[in-house]
């Protein structure tokens, strides 16, 4: 994995989430890790978030990313530091940090922003914090239009996970997950 020439520690992706939550960053977890949390047996190597672009939140996010020495993820060993302006645009900022890779996305498929996605999230109680996660149904809807081969490959797994999850809910099982919704 290209790390911008930087070696990361052996921390897991959970540590990235904890760091963001402890820093008070407003974000929605999307992508592979959002699917993992909701029960999809896939493995992912980065954390994808859609962040609120309010000035206060940009400041919190930037401070956190600086604290974990975030640099732009590149195929070569050049270290390009993150700047505030990178988080203000509408693009995807792919970063390497000391605790793991983070993709900071202003918008995702269909130009949907943090505010647009809020109503499609589930709240997960995670290590004393509330983690906002894009729900599986919306994840599937968004991935349907994706041209990424990885997304196409995962789609049947996500669909079957949602089917089994719906079945569990209708039987009144999986109390912990359903209480979070």
């Amino acid at each position, binding site marked *: 994995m290209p790390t911008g020439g930087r070696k990361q520690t052996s921390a897991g992706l*959970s540590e990235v989430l904890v760091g963001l939550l402890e820093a008070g960053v407003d974000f929605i977890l999307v992508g592979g890790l959002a699917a993992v949390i909701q029960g999809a047996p896939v493995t992912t190597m980065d954390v994808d978030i859609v962040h609120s672009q309010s000035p206060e939140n940009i400041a919190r996010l930037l401070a956190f990313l600086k604290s974990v020495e975030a640099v732009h993820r590149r195929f070569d060993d050049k270290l390009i530091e993150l700047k505030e302006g990178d988080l203000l645009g509408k693009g995807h900022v792919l970063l390497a940090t000391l605790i793991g890779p983070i993709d900071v996305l202003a918008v995702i498929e269909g130009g949907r922003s943090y505010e647009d996605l809020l109503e499609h999230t589930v709240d997960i109680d995670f290590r004393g914090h509330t983690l906002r996660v894009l729900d599986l149904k919306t994840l599937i809807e968004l991935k349907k239009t994706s041209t990424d081969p990885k997304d196409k490959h995962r789609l049947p797994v996500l669909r079957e996970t949602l089917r089994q999850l719906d079945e569990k809910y209708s039987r009144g099982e999986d109390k912990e997950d359903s209480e979070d919704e």
Partner: protein
Amino acid sequence: MSNETKVADESGVDKGLIAMFLRMSPEERLRANDDAFRTILELRDAYRRQKADERGLE
């Protein structure tokens, strides 16, 4: 797991693996991914070291 014991549909989705993951809590699922993440990094590192050693021997 052998092909005989896997419960997969026509698309090749392993339904049993999904059922197993759904029995876990969200925290347990994250931990499983973290473990996989660390293992993959460790194996990639070992692979790189092995390749570097091989090049050194040539």
